[in-house]
């Protein structure tokens, strides 16, 4: 049943996994996402019979996901930045074999072992394909504990609709912070068998093979062209974004996830001071809402893109804007979260510096 609860983002995501009829979770502890594994270990199996297994490494986790996803079940894993790096080979295989699954990255500061504090340094890795070869993940970027829950069933639906891995790209703050969350009603686990799944070959169908090996170049190119055609369709149909106060905005803040929330506050303070600021937030980082942003960029004086990295999404913002408006960037790294005042200050600095 529907329920209102105060929860951590990681717990809300885990609860949503149970409620969306997830069949299996394979994971490995890493801060700041271990609550997902802990919560599922405690509640999932006893409630729905869902498989929850702590693997010996993230490499093993993602390959367990590969195997289980190949049976057509709803399967997922979660980790944080270094662990997601370890999974990249497996993710590339999953993308090529066109297996549906959910991968959650609760992004922490890097590079290297980095810090356990929130960051957005994995944007490129998530959106541009962190593993080898030409592939794409559908990437959802929640900005609240509510969306940590809501994006889970959405992710599974998209994964099965497109037979493609879906990533929820969160961050250490969204994973750890507590907010009220309106939990959706629990869905039963599915019993339908996917026609392509490896579940044992009955007499009346050809054998199913899950593979990403196509050794003949002609065949491999065919597979690539098929994947690319799928990605073009996804770009047409699955774009999701949110605009706040953009109707009369002269200045636009672009940000995703947690930073978008902070930008809302910055815009609100700005408006109180008479500066007309709007906020554009992509909910899907891939497919990126390029057309909507392009349209908006024709109506504003300039854009300030804010991220918790050295400037990653800003490249997609600039590509989308196509020079219609100047795009400035402000970023913090290493686990530092920018404040609303800091963002507004940056915007005013650009104004006084001659940009108007």
């Amino acid at each position, binding site marked *: 049943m529907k329920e209102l609860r105060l929860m951590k983002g990681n717990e809300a995501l885990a609860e949503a996994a149970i409620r969306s009829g997830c*069949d*299996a979770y*394979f994971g490995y502890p890493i801060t700041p996402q271990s609550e997902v594994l802990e919560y599922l270990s405690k509640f999932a199996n006893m409630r729905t019979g869902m*498989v929850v*297994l702590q*693997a*010996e*490494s993230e*490499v*093993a*986790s993602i*390959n*367990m*996901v*590969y*195997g*289980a*996803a*190949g*049976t057509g*079940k709803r*399967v997922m894993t979660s980790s944080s930045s270094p662990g997601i790096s370890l999974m990249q*080979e*497996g993710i590339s*295989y999953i993308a090529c074999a066109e297996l549906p699954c959910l991968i959650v990255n609760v992004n922490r500061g890097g590079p290297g072992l980095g810090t356990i504090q929130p960051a957005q340094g994995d944007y490129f890795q998530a959106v541009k394909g962190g593993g080898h070869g030409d592939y794409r993940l559908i990437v959802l970027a929640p900005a609240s504990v509510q969306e940590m829950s809501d994006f889970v069933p959405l992710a599974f639906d998209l994964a099965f609709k497109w037979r493609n891995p879906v990533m929820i790209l969160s961050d250490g703050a969204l994973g750890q912070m507590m907010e009220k969350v309106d939990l959706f009603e629990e869905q039963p686990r599915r019993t339908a068998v996917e026609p392509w*799944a*490896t*579940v*044992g*070959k*009955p*007499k009346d169908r050809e*054998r*199913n*093979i*899950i*593979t*990403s*090996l196509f050794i003949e170049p002609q065949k491999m190119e065919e597979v690539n062209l098929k994947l690319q055609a799928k990605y073009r369709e996804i770009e047409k149909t699955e774009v999701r974004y949110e605009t706040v106060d953009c109707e009369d905005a002269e200045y636009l803040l672009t940000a995703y996830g947690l930073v978008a929330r902070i930008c809302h506050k910055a815009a609100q303070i700005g408006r109180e001071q008479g500066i007309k600021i709007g906020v554009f937030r992509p909910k899907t980082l891939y497919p990126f809402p390029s057309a909507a942003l392009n349209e908006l960029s024709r109506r504003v004086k300039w854009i300030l893109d804010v991220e918790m990295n050295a400037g990653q999404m800003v490249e997609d913002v600039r590509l989308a804007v196509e020079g219609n408006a100047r795009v400035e960037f402000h970023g913090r790294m290493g686990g530092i979260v920018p404040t609303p005042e800091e963002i507004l200050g940056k915007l005013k600095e650009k104004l006084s510096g001659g940009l108007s």
Partner: protein
Amino acid sequence: MNERTMLSEERHFENMIQAESICTAENLVYERPGTLLDVTMHYCPGCGHGVAHRLLMEVVDELGIQSQTIGIAPVGCSVFAYNYMNIDMQEAAHGRATAAATGIKRVLPEKYVFTYQGDGDLAAIGTGETIHTCNRGENILIVFINNGVYGMTGGQMAPTTLPGMKTTTSPYGRDVKVQGYPLKIADIVATLPGSFYVTRQAVHTPAYVRKAKKAMLKSFQYQKLGKGTCFIEIVSNCPSNWKMTPVESNRWVKEHMLPYYPLGDLKVPSEKETAQ
């Protein structure tokens, strides 16, 4: 054409006529198992993979479990195993076959799941997965082909390469002081409480082929008990990369591989443990 070749050609022709008269339905004692697809294998002449594939499919046929069996191919020479076995199969990343098998078996616990892996895949890059899968006692069968060399990539040193054995990356022979010792991974697996049945077999003579088949049959039967991992190492050959004829390579298995990797059971469940 000299007299000798003529004679041998005549004999060959005679043999063919004889063969045709012998090949009749009532004389048939041995045929291709139904789940082994009727296609030409890519394996080199004399390679043990073909025999091991056949044995697996014979067992699947005899147990009537084609519709309940899911196999995992590795990365290595047997990466194309799914081209030959008429069952649902997955091709796993290098070394990760047992992780993929774990994923499958956990969501489909009633099905039969096996991996088929070479020594590089299972005992080098996949050592972690191998150990932990067996230690969790996943109810799967692991078939491990040990021929002491990386076949697919062209004969490089494997974790199982014998001391002094020449490969393309140990061109002067494996020096254990530099490159370490051959890994007896079946022995390690046998020490783990999660493994149920661990055995080392070979396929270089008909008698050993039959023994290997028995081990496979037992392993599938044990899988139904749900009591742990079955692990069959098959000490095999690699004529191409050993640069030998098939016959020479089989002799080399006997004279060099088997003294280091002695055949036989390493862990056998008790009667009580195998009681249904």
